[in-house]
C-alpha cells in the first residue's frame, strides 16, 4: 500500500514537471522544429538577446508584476487586518466581493474592466494593466493574510493597547511582524499571478505596452520560436531563485 | 484464564523505547487501570491493543487468540478516545449506530440496541442532536455508548475523563463504575490521575518510563508501594534516607543524620535504606511528653494550610529538610492554634512506615 501511494504521488509530480523539463531541454536543442535532439546549443539564448521586442515585453511584464504585486500586497494586508480587527458598515459586502472575485472566471473581470476603461476613456496600456493586475491580486493577498490572522492571538493586540500603543503602532510593531510570512507569501502569489495572467491582460492591454503573455500568445499560434523556450527557462530559474532567496531570508529572520 | 494477555510487548519509535517487555494479564470482568505520568507508555499499550499501532515485538492474546496482526476493525475491542472522536457530521443516534452498521446488524436490531444504550446513558431525548450541540459530559456519554453498544470483549478508555471539569469528573467516575458492573464488560482504563485510579479500579498497574512498576489493588498500591516512584506518584510521602546500623530477626536500627530509629521488621534490609511515611501517618504534638514513640523529630512549623477535611503542616527539621504532616480536622484539634515558628514534635506509630532498599 505504501509503495502504491508513493508511486502515485511520484507520477503526479513527474507529470507536473514534465512539460517544464521538456521546455528547458528544448531551449538547448539545436533543432528548430523537430522534437528530436540535434545537439546542444546556446543559439536560442543568443537569438533571444537580439530579439528586442521580446526582451522589452519581458521587462514590461516584470515591471507590471513588481508594481502590481507590491501595491496589491500593501492594500491587501491593510484590508485583511481591517477586516480582522474592525466592524464597519459594508463589511459583509466587502467580504463577499473578495470571495466572489477569487472564484470568478478571469474573463468576467477582464471584460468588466475593459468596459470601465472604455467608459472613462482611459487609454489601454501601462496604467490599465496595473489597475487590472492589482484588482486581480488583492483578494488573494487578503485571503492569504486572513488565514494567518485567524490563528493570531487577539489578546496580544489587547496587551499592546493596554500598554498604550496607538492603532498604527499596534499594526506596525505587533501585527505586521507576526503576519510577515503571510504577507510575503501574498506578495509572491501576486507576483506569479500577474506574471502569468493571460486572460485579463488580453482585454486591458494596448499596443503601447506589450507584455510577455500576450506577446507569447500571438507567437504561439504561429508556432513557438525556440527563443521563447530560452526566455521561459531564464524566467523560471529567476523566479525560483527569488522565491528560494525570500524563503531563506524569512528563515534567517525567524532565528 | 485471562481475557487479555500481553506477552513481552515492546514498542520503539525509531530509537526511542516507549515500552519495554510488558507482560500483563487482564481478567474477565475486571476494571483495570493503567496509571502513570504522561509519556510512561500507558496510552501506547491501549493503542497497541486497539490496533492503532503495531508492536515492535511481543504478543497480544484476546480470549486466547493472537490479535496483534489484525487491523483495528477486525478486533473485538472498542475504544473511548480521550477527545471522544465523535463523528461531527452524524447525529448522536448515527454515531452510536455506526459500529452496528459496520457489522451489518439488521436495522431493527440496530434501532433496538441503540435506543437501549441511549436510555442507559440517559441521552434518549438527544438522539437526533449533533455532537456539537451537546455538553462535554453528554459527549463523553455518547463516546462510551458508541463503544459499548458493540458489546466488545474489552473496552479501552484513554484518559476518558480528563477533559471534564472536577465536579463532572467525580460524577462520571461513579457512573462509569456502575455502568461497568451493569454491562459486565472488562474495562481497561488509562489515566494519569491517581485519585481517579484509586477510586475506580479493581487493580492498578503503575507505569513509569515504559515499564511496569507495580501491579496491585488500590489498597496495596497505596499502603505497600514497592518502589519509591510508586510511593511518590500515589499521594504525598516523606522520604528519609537512612543507613543500617544493626538488625536482628525482629527489629532493625537505622540512622538518619544524628538520630537513630528502631524499626519493627523481620525483612532483611540492605545498607542504604529509605523510610517512607505518608503525611497522614505522622502525629504532631506540642509537648515532648505526649510523644509515644522513640522514632520522633523535633521540628519548627513553617506553614499551615487549612484544606477542609485536613490541616496540612509544613515542618522543618534541624538539618533544614522539609517534611509534611496532615492532621484530620476536628473542632477540638490543637492544630489550628499552632503558630508559625513554634517547635513541634513529630512521630509515627510503629510499623506504619514503608521500608524500601535504596535503588
Amino acid at each position: 500500500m505504501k509503495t502504491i501511494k508513493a508511486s502515485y504521488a511520484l507520477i503526479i509530480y513527474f507529470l507536473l514537471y514534465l512539460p517544464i523539463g521538456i521546455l528547458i531541454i528544448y531551449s538547448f536543442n539545436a533543432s528548430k522544429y523537430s522534437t528530436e535532439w540535434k545537439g546542444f546549443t546556446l543559439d536560442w539564448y543568443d537569438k533571444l538577446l537580439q530579439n528586442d521586442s521580446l526582451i522589452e515585453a519581458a521587462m514590461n511584464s516584470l515591471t507590471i508584476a513588481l508594481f502590481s504585486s507590491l501595491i496589491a500586497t500593501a492594500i491587501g494586508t491593510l484590508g485583511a487586518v481591517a477586516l480582522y480587527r474592525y466592524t464597519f458598515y459594508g463589511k459583509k459586502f466587502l467580504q463577499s466581493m473578495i470571495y466572489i472575485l477569487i472564484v470568478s472566471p478571469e474573463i468576467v473581470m477582464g471584460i468588466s474592466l475593459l468596459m470601465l476603461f472604455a467608459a472613462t476613456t482611459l487609454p489601454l496600456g501601462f496604467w490599465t494593466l496595473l489597475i487590472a493586475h492589482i484588482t486581480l491580486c488583492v483578494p488573494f493577498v487578503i485571503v492569504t493574510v486572513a488565514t494567518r490572522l485567524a490563528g493570531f492571538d487577539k489578546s496580544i493586540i489587547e496587551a499592546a493597547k493596554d500598554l498604550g500603543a496607538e492603532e498604527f503602532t499596534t499594526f506596525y510593531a505587533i501585527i505586521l511582524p507576526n503576519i510577515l510570512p503571510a504577507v510575503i507569501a501574498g506578495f509572491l502569489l501576486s507576483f506569479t499571478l500577474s506574471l502569468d495572467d493571460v486572460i485579463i491582460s488580453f482585454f486591458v492591454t494596448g499596443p503601447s505596452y506589450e507584455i510577455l503573455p500576450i506577446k507569447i500568445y500571438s507567437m504561439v499560434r504561429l508556432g513557438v520560436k525556440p527563443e521563447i523556450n530560452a526566455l521561459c527557462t531564464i524566467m523560471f530559474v529567476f523566479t525560483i531563485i527569488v522565491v528560494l532567496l525570500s524563503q531563506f531570508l524569512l528563515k534567517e529572520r525567524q532565528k | 484464564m485471562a481475557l487479555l494477555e500481553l506477552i513481552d510487548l515492546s514498542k520503539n519509535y525509531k530509537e526511542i523505547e516507549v515500552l519495554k517487555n510488558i507482560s500483563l494479564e487482564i481478567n474477565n470482568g475486571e476494571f483495570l487501570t493503567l496509571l502513570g505520568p504522561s509519556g510512561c507508555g500507558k496510552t501506547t499499550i491501549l493503542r497497541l491493543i486497539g490496533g492503532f499501532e503495531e508492536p515492535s515485538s511481543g504478543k497480544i492474546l484476546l480470549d486466547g487468540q493472537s490479535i496483534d496482526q489484525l487491523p483495528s476493525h477486525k478486533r473485538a475491542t472498542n475504544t473511548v478516545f480521550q477527545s471522544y472522536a465523535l463523528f461531527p457530521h452524524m447525529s448522536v443516534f448515527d454515531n452510536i449506530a455506526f459500529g452496528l452498521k459496520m457489522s451489518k446488524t439488521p436495522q431493527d436490531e440496530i434501532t433496538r440496541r441503540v435506543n437501549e444504550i441511549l436510555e442507559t446513558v440517559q441521552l434518549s431525548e438527544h438522539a437526533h442532536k449533533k455532537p456539537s450541540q451537546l455538553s462535554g459530559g453528554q459527549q463523553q456519554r455518547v463516546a462510551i455508548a458508541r463503544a459499548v453498544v458493540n458489546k466488545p470483549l474489552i473496552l479501552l478508555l484513554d484518559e476518558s475523563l480528563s477533559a471534564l471539569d472536577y465536579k463532572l469528573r467525580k460524577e462520571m467516575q461513579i457512573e462509569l463504575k456502575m455502568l461497568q458492573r451493569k454491562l459486565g464488560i472488562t474495562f481497561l482504563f488509562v489515566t494519569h490521575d491517581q485519585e481517579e485510579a484509586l477510586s475506580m479500579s479493581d487493580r492498578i498497574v503503575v507505569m513509569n518510563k515504559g515499564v511496569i512498576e507495580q501491579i496491585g489493588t488500590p489498597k496495596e498500591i497505596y499502603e505497600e508501594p514497592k518502589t519509591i516512584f510508586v510511593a511518590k506518584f500515589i499521594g504525598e510521602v516523606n522520604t528519609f534516607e537512612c543507613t543500617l546500623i544493626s538488625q536482628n530477626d525482629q527489629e532493625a536500627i537505622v540512622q538518619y543524620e544524628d538520630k537513630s530509629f528502631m524499626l519493627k521488621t523481620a525483612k532483611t534490609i540492605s545498607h542504604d535504606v529509605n523510610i517512607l511515611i505518608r503525611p497522614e501517618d505522622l502525629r504532631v504534638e506540642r509537648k515532648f511528653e505526649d510523644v509515644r514513640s522513640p522514632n520522633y523529630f523535633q521540628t519548627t512549623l513553617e506553614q499551615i494550610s487549612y484544606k477542609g477535611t485536613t490541616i496540612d503542616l509544613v515542618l522543618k527539621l534541624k538539618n533544614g529538610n522539609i517534611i509534611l504532616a496532615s492532621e484530620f480536622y476536628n473542632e477540638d484539634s490543637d492544630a489550628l492554634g499552632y503558630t508559625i515558628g513554634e517547635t513541634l514534635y513529630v512521630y509515627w506509630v510503629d510499623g506504619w512506615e514503608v521500608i524500601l532498599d535504596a535503588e
Partner: protein
Amino acid sequence: MLNNSLSRFAIVSIGIIFVWIVLFAFLPQLLVFIASFLTKGSQQMIEFEGNLENYTRLADPIYLKIFWDSFVLALITALLCLVIAYPFAAILARTSVQWRPILLILIIIPFWTSSLVRTYALIAIIKTKGLLNALLLWLGIISAPLELMYTETAVFIGMVYTLLPFMILPLFASIEKIDPRLLEAAGDLGAGFWNKLVKITIPLTMPGIIAGFMLVFLPALGMFYIPDLLGGAKNLIIGSFIRNQFLTFRDWPFGSAASMLLTFLMLALVAVYYRSQKVVESKDSA
C-alpha cells in the same frame, strides 16, 4: 460608512480597500450588468436602448450549444481533477509535518512559468510526432501514432494540467484538518478502508471538494486559450465566445449578457459552497 469610534488608521485601511473594490470590481460589474440590457450601436459602441433582447438572443440553439459544450467541458475537467487530485491530496496530507510545506511548494513551482508556454510544451509532448507517440511506439504499445492534437482529449489534458493545483490545494487543506482520531474511531468500530472513505473522510471534506470544484470549474468556463491552442478552436466555448463578442464583433451588450450568465452561474455555485461551509462550521465547533 464607518463607526465613529474608529481611529484614523482604521478609517484609512478600511477606506483604501473599500474604494478599490467598489471602483474596480463592483462598478465595472455594474456596467456589464447595465450594458447587458442595452443594444449594439452603429456609430457608438453602445446605444442606450434598454431591452431583454440580448438575453433572448442567447436562447438561440447555436448559443445554447456553446453554453452546453462549455458546461460539459468544465464539468468533466473539474471531475477529472477531483478524481486525480483526491488520492494525491490524501497521500500528501498524511505525510510527516516537516515534509508537507516542501511537498506543497513542489506543486506550485511548475506554475511559476507562463501557462501559455507550458501549454506549448504540452503540444510538443502530445503532437503526432511528439514525445508521447515516440515513447508509445518505441514501447510497442501502439503501432501508429495517436492523433491527439486538436481533439477533445488534448483539451482535457491541457485543462486538467493547468487547473489541477487549484483542486489539490483546497482538498489538501480540508483533508489535513480531519482529526486522525476520527478515522481511528471508525476503524475501531469496524469500518474498513471504503467505509472510512465514504462515511467519514468524504463527508468531512465536502467543503474542500466543493471549493476545489469551484476553483476548477469556474476558470475552466472562461479559459479560452487552452481550447484554442490544443483543440484548434473547433468547438466554441463561452470564454472564446465572450472574447469574440468584445474584440471581434464589437457587440459589447451581447457579450455582456453572456458574461452575466456566467456570473449568475458562479453566484449560484458560491451560494452552494457557502451553505456547505456553514454546515461544516457548525460541526467544527464540536
